[in-house]
């Protein structure tokens, strides 16, 4: 077995050094009823070539987004990731290191996390960010828990423009952690009035920008309304690239920013692993979940970094911790940090401009197809179309034409027949004009 270095002789000699007759001796605390005599019913070990064939066979049964014209979004976006990102994150010193609990021998990870925290704070316009969460939806649930701690209230008000999966994760946490969730109806047209629904029990209002339907909002007035009522405003951004072009949540008065960072540095990966972004105001930092890296000096007075404010965390506070999270999304945060370092100010803003321009072009082409109407009056790189037929059928038929046409709203709201004809479509820098034309032509053919 290529991963196991011991020879039979090694094992014999080591057992002798231990004073054990056999390895079974070492398992003598296991009750007899629970000892497996032989091997479990699974295949034996295999060499690299055989395993590679097996896994590649499974991969071949999928149709990668890159092999088609893909316009899928809905919380995960296909962007170009520079080749140096994947090269650097595969360096063993990053890949095979643990959480940086020993700062003298993990300054690399710690400095990177400090840079990551700074990047997240900058793009969101917030004061301070943590070292990442599992993903956007779990980050949103943690934001509600944090708002509950800050306000000592226990009711979250969710926008109808929030990604339904984010709503469901918040509802799961609410149901089992004991806070109530009031979710507004799916807000296709962007007319919901959340401010009037804030009451004395509301701990936070959770909105998304752009909304799941792609619409862009200014939440400044809602932030003020929430704060006047003693509640916090949580702004969720599922497409991190949008922050290169849009007024950031911090400038709208958000108290907590939650983002899905997958778009920057990370592949689609069929939904994970991704990286949750989480930032807040300075005054709330001690209520923030997750790990934090801070600057300090070493015994010789040289600048260095450590994990800090860890008394908020489970390994010290145990049942009084701000969150039960231990492992987060370090390597995905590294990918994010490297990609954003490569982009820089000019690259990040330009990438956002290209995304928006492609979406505008696509909206014009698709809006020109007979029977199709554009629902949004504003959008970044994703918008919603209303089709004359159920969107899921259209999407299935377009697969045959080499087009992944978008996310049918029915996939996200299976119980809402009124949304059956809505299709959520995204364009990124990866989409060519030829792909857009193929999409428009094929859509016309199947309608």
């Amino acid at each position: 077995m290529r991963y196991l270095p011991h020879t039979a002789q090694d094992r014999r000699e080591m057992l002798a050094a231990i004073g054990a007759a056999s390895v079974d001796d070492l398992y003598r605390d296991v009750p007899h009823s629970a000892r497996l005599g032989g091997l479990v019913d699974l295949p034996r070990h295999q060499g690299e070539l055989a395993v590679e064939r097996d896994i590649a066979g499974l991969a071949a049964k999928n149709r990668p987004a890159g092999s088609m014209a893909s316009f899928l979004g809905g919380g995960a976006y296909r962007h170009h990731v520079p080749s140096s990102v994947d090269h650097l994150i595969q360096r063993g010193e990053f890949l095979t290191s643990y959480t940086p609990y020993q700062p003298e021998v993990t300054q690399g990870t710690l400095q990177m996390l400090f840079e990551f925290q700074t990047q997240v704070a900058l793009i969101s316009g917030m004061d301070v960010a943590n070292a990442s969460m599992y993903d956007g939806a779990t980050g949103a649930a943690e934001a509600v828990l944090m708002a509950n701690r800050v306000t000592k209230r226990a009711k979250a008000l969710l926008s109808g423009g929030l990604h339904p999966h984010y709503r469901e994760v918040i509802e799961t946490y609410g149901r089992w952690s004991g806070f109530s969730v009031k979710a507004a109806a799916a807000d296709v047209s962007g007319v919901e009035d959340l401010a009037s629904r804030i009451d004395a029990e509301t701990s936070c209002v959770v909105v998304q920008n752009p909304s799941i339907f792609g619409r862009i909002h200014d939440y400044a007035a809602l932030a003020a309304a929430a704060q006047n009522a003693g509640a916090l405003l949580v702004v969720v951004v599922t497409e991190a690239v949008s922050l290169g072009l849009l007024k950031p949540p911090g400038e709208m008065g958000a108290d907590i920013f939650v983002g899905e960072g997958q778009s920057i540095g990370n592949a689609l990966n069929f939904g994970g692993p991704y990286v949750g972004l989480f930032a807040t105001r300075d005054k709330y930092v001690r209520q923030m979940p997750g790990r934090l890296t801070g600057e300090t000096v070493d015994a010789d007075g040289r600048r260095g970094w450590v994990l800090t404010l860890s008394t908020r965390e489970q390994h010290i506070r145990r049942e009084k911790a701000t969150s039960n999270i231990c492992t987060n999304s370090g390597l995905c945060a590294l990918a994010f940090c490297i990609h954003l370092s490569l982009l820089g100010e000019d690259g990040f803003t330009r990438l956002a401009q290209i995304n928006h321009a492609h979406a505008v072009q696509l909206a014009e082409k698709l809006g020109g197809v007979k029977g199709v109407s554009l629902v949004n009056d504003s959008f970044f790189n994703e918008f919603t179309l209303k089709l004359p037929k159920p969107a899921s059928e259209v999407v299935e038929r377009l697969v045959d034409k080499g087009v992944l046409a978008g996310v049918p709203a029915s996939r996200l709201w299976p119980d809402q027949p009124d949304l059956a004809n809505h299709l959520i479509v995204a364009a990124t820098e990866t989409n060519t004009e030829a792909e857009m034309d193929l999409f428009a032509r094929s859509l016309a053919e199947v309608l």
Partner: protein
Amino acid sequence: MDKSQGRTARPDAAPAAEIVTASGHRGLQTEEKLIFEQGEPGRTGVDLPAPPKVADRLNGLKRQRPVGLPGLSEPQVIRHFTRLSQKNYAIDSGLYPLGSCTMKHNPRLNEKMARLPGLADIHPLQPVSTVQGALELMDRLAHWLKTLTGMPAVALTPGAGAHGEFCGMVAIRAALDAKGQQSRKRVLVPESAHGTNPATAAACGFTVDAIPADDRGRVDLAAFKAKLGPDVAAIMLTNPNTCGLFEPDIVTIAKALHEAGGYFYCDGANFNAIAGRVRPADLGIDAMHINLHKTFSTPHGGGGPGSGPVVFSEALAPYVPLPYVVHGKDGFRLVEGREGKAEPLGRLKTFHGQMGMFVRALTYMLSHGADGIRQASEDAVLNANYLLARLKDVMSPAFDGPCMHECLFDDSFLKDTGVSTLDFAKALIDEGFHPMTMYFPLVVHGALLIEPTESETRASLDEFVGSLRSLATRAKQGEAASFHAAPRLTPRRRLDETRAARQPVLRWKPAAPTRQAAE
């Protein structure tokens, strides 16, 4: 004729310790500024085309101010992160005996497989007809996990161990609620448990009741039985436990608990000691998370991403979270809403779980096979017992052996030496090793928890033993001062954590303009 021009082929023997360099670098140990201190406006590491000219549709909400990101070229970025990486200790570079964390070798085949376009470049919301291979892969991973544990069901979605604990504990809550037993709120948690256990129980609305350990490092069976009652919802027990010991009474504990109407949650962080040799189902467990990033070697990545699938007994199987994979008429299906009798416990992550980690874990399992997984467990246990045997005369084992995959020492061997567990661990860094886990579990004073894993050769274990024995001897010989000063050979020496916490600096900020610049 002197062709050497003064060059000599033999090094001088002058001491290097006090050398001061103009650059601040010390040979291969380089000082590296923050990206924010290296950037220049107008510089970039990507070449993007000019955006097509369009009338914007931004509703007047265009960003008005610069983001403030630094501009770096690709070579700068490569050098920056390469230099940062060189400040990290890693499994690739040495033995990483961090108890309870399972720092085993991370095969590169796993990385290669996870990057196949057919697995990495698929969108979670593609039509299921286009992702049959992905669903099949999840189904196969589920089959391996179920077979190895003997459990009938598995939830794949949890993002890491603590998330898995949350999943398992809310499933228990749901099952109790379905039986009308809302009043069962007390969860028994041994004092030696991972901090995540009580944190999770509290997050799910349970109250935590600590069970003491006996003097053998095991759950005190009498104390446990005395705590059973009609309000007990569950026990959260790590097995093998955090002292590195198998709980010999586990079957008795499970039986007594079940008779009292409670559920058995097992923290599977240490499954790597018994995988292929013991099936948790045969121990009476109702739910257990498996850290794929520990037992099945998906890399730790400097702190994640992890993956924490949870296996369930028949009693809890109806409560698996959404979404999950089922066999349908025309292939695999993804269930994303309520189907069937019981109400699932809801959604835990944005999408379907940590697919990239599933690929790595399945690749690892196929590589090892049933025989290799069993052998890996045995070798991990063998290595830990070998360390215990070779160190027990100079260090102080907390409990008698045999241990499982990790061995635990207390700090009594350092008594009256002036050297603390922390000092001892920091001195180990200068010896070229990552420290063991310190001060955990809490039930042992000054704990040192060593987990070598199966990846190490005997020679590497012997070298490690040599360092530990030497340090233990030096501590006893009164060299405390050198321990207090350790580490000295690292990019940074001990860091001032008090300062970091008293005046938190959690992000870079541009220096305030000096008066001169302002004028």
